[in-house]
């Protein structure tokens, strides 16, 4: 086992040598040689392909794959003579220690940049390992503010962090409620008890009163939870105007069904990064339970032409439209752009190119990217609502495709 | 003063009165035997004396000290050690290691305990098997191991539960000699035995237990002549058949 590694390094450096040679060849105007020597740029994906988050990992991979395929079809990275993007998957197995091992392994396999993380715990440890190896790390969906708050060089997040999302969610909630004449006054939070759900609930419980809402209760549940009937009963007994769930997809589904089943008389369901209401599969399968649910989440700007192409491409590939797909797709485009501008597979150069990126041709409602301390400043979530069979963006106004239906019309 | 005194000891398991009001004494310097047919309650009585079972009533004194209901390992530390009728070797360990476990009671050092184990094995004629795993021993070997381990604790009183059962006559006479030697070295012995030849030649005192009760007590010669005992042993009619 021990002897193989140096050879691998040797191979990598030979490839670099060829790359350098090819670049020189390109400069000398020898395109034929370029085509004869197809090169690749390796991007390491740290996704949970097995274990608890395997579904999310598969979705994330599908998004990155779509972007890479598009880039490659259009001729790859031009500044590197049309080098193709090669995705190398490192399965984090939903465990931090496995993620770190994969980061090490792929670093040595010569990846130019990492993309991934999914959950905050995995993202935190994996990005740290990448920073140690000097490889840029682009976080896809982890929301913990510590990801980019630790001052690790080369660790980026394209999407919004925790504070941004929750603040935006509150703004959206207040705006929607105000527009409807402030019918809602009380809130119950339902959240999964991991980092993401607990953090969300803690923050909301502190912030909601400042915005004029009374938090009646905050109900934590584990992942997985087998049954949501009790929560349904509690909600029915407490009669909140608004239920705010933050859970992973399976639990979200069960919760929505339970609220529907117990005919909890809520005026609105407003979730913050709730796995379910931003998932067409859920809407297809439980349309009745899903109606009018609002969700503040990572979401595309549906008005961009690129977004429309993106949605269509996903349909062709039979991939569910979820935020993991969107963010990984967008991140991959951003990384490709940075490499294009760096004109090199040198990690430090790519890192610098990402840091100075003003990339705009993505599908998210962010505007041009601007990284400060690794965090993309323009990143923000969108608030969507399930209306019939569609997920409509209802906030922020400039991206909206429909008006919010609130409070829920009583039959 | 008696080394061991059991007085009116009783034990009941569910509907079965295993031992009823049994009393016996072990005098110093003597080998005392407890005999009786299968199921008479001998092993239960042993278990109570050695602390493995708590008697329902009655009292047990060892060296004048009340030990009724004391935990088995504490009884052992006082110098009263039992062996098991159904041998209980540490099956995965070698003979040497088995014996050394007993030796550790008085000897904390591993090396010295192992050395002492070898010495005891030699005394019992087991030196050839010292490094054999206990589970590979024959019945006779296991019985001996049981004895060796108990002896390694350097006891004051040794309770031997059928150490001769299943041995061939030559093995029996070897063990008899060993037990005598142990007695001569100052260890008092209470034994349960079926091999009557050995009981008769070894013991100074014999108690007979039947259906949980002591039905006779005396010197071996008296016991052999006792009609009740013969009947209890060979079954009804034996006393007449003999006559």
């Amino acid at each position: 086992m021990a002897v193989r590694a140096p050879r691998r390094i040797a191979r990598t450096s030979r490839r670099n040598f060829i790359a350098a040679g090819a670049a020189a060849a390109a400069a000398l105007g020898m395109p034929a040689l370029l085509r004869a020597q197809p090169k690749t740029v390796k991007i390491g994906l740290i996704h949970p392909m097995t274990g608890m988050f395997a579904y999310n990992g598969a979705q994330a991979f599908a998004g990155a794959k779509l972007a890479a395929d598009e880039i490659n079809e259009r001729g790859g990275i031009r500044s590197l003579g049309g080098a193709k993007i090669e995705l190398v998957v490192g399965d984090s197995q939903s465990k931090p220690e496995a993620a770190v091992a994969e980061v090490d392994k792929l670093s040595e396999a010569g990846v130019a940049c990492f993309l991934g993380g999914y959950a905050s715990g995995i993202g935190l440890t994996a990005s740290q390992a990448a920073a140690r190896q000097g490889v840029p790390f682009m976080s896809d969906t982890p929301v913990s503010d510590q990801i980019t708050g630790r001052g690790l060089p080369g660790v980026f997040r394209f999407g919004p962090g925790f504070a941004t999302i929750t603040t935006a969610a509150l703004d959206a909630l207040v705006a929607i409620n105000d527009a409807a004449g402030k019918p809602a006054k009380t809130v119950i939070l339902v959240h999964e008890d991991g980092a993401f759900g607990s953090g969300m609930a803690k923050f909301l419980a502190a912030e909601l009163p400042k915005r004029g809402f009374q938090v009646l209760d905050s109900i934590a549940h584990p992942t997985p939870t087998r049954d949501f009937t009790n929560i349904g009963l509690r909600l029915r007994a407490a009669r909140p105007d608004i239920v705010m769930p933050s859970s992973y997809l399976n639990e979200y589904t069960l919760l929505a069904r339970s609220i529907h089943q117990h005919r909890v008389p809520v005026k609105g369901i407003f979730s913050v990064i709730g796995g379910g209401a931003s998932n067409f599969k859920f809407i297809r399968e439980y349309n009745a339970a899903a109606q009018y649910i609002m969700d503040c989440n990572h979401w595309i700007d549906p008005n961009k032409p690129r977004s429309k192409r993106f949605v269509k491409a996903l349909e062709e590939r039979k991939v569910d439209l979820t935020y993991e797909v969107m963010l990984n797709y967008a991140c991959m485009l951003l990384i490709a752009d940075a490499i294009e501008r760096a004109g090199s597979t040198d990690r430090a150069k790519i890192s610098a190119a990402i840091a100075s990126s003003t990339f705009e041709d993505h599908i998210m409602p962010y505007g041009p990217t601007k990284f400060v301390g690794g965090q993309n400043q323009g990143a923000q979530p969108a608030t969507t609502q399930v209306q019939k069979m569609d997920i409509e963006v209802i906030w922020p106004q400039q991206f909206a495709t429909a008006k919010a239906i609130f409070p829920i019309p009583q039959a | 003063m008696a080394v061991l005194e059991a007085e009116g000891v009783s034990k009941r398991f569910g509907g079965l009165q295993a031992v009823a009001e049994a009393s016996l004494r072990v005098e110093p310097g003597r080998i005392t035997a407890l005999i009786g047919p299968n199921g008479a309650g001998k092993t239960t009585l042993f278990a109570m004396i050695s602390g493995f079972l708590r008697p329902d009533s009655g009292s047990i004194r060892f060296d004048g000290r009340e030990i009724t209901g004391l935990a088995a390992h504490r009884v052992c530390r006082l110098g009263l050690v039992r062996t098991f009728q159904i041998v209980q070797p540490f099956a995965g360990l070698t003979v040497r290691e088995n014996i050394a476990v007993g030796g550790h009671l008085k000897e904390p050092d591993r090396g010295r305990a192992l050395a002492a184990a070898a010495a005891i094995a030699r005394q019992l004629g087991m030196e050839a098997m010292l490094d054999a795993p206990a589970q590979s021993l024959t019945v006779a070997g296991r019985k001996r191991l049981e004895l060796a381990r108990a002896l390694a604790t350097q006891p004051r009183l040794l309770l031997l539960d059928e150490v001769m059962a299943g041995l061939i006559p030559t093995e029996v006479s070897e063990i008899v000699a060993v037990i005598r030697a142990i007695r001569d070295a100052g260890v008092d012995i209470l034994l349960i035995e079926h091999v009557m030849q050995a009981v008769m030649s070894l013991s100074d005192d014999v108690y007979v237990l039947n259906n949980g009760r002591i039905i006779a007590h005396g010197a071996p010669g008296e016991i052999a002549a006792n009609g009740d005992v013969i009947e209890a042993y060979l079954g009804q009619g034996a006393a007449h058949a003999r006559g």
Partner: protein
Amino acid sequence: MLADPVFLLAVAFNGLTVGAIYALVALGLALIYGVLHIINFAHGSLLMLALYAAFFLFTLGGVDPYVAVLALAPGFFVFGYLLQRFVIAPISFGRDTNVLLVTLGLSIIFDNLALYLWTSTTRTINVPYAQTYVDIGVTAVALPRLVALGAALLVGVAFWLLMTRTDLGKAIRAVARERQGARIVGISVEHIFAVSFGLGTAVVALAACLLLPTFYVTPTVGYAFVLIAFTTVVLGGMGSFIGALLGGLLLGVVEAFSGVLLGESLGQIGIFLIFILVLLFRPTGFFGQRVA
């Protein structure tokens, strides 16, 4: 809220319906533990396989899960039988630690086979009656939940009849306590082991069919039930079949109330504390017999 008797009754009843599923999963485990005296780590994975089987029968063959029981219960019986007889028994050589590793290995195999074959996508089925609610006064209960509760009780009765009225049941009980004696009357202990494992697996298949209409299936779905099943088995008395059923129902109720009192998250602790207390103070469970 907690003083509201209607609310409390609703919570209790809901606990019962959830407990019914626990009871069924635990019943299988109790049978396997009670007879073979092994801790089956693959139990959750078997539940997962059964859920997939029911899912595919529905989506590909249009077979309603309640109808699928008729095929899946016997099918999983055979599967369990073969698994014990030709995989677990020969590989474990009857050693407890090896049985542990074998069932652990099996669960790794099943889980990843499922991941490979069917990917990690969460799958659910949509049957019309899943959204049918029955008003029982204190609360509205989804029809499948009521069916599950009824089925658990029915299975309880059926098991009781099987165990007391048939030679097979008597033989299973005999093997559970006295293997040598069983061999002496001509009972093939290996066969009874495999039958017990098969029955335990069949009950899990039944539980899967009852669960699917209101639940989902992923390759890791079994984990949600394994620990609770162990707890149920301990609570009911290791190896007691009636105990497993009643224990499951009881745990459902306990879970419901501790969830309401402490929150769903911290509320799980109620179950484990009961588990520990029962193990310490009444290791035979509430229905198990004292072993001499």
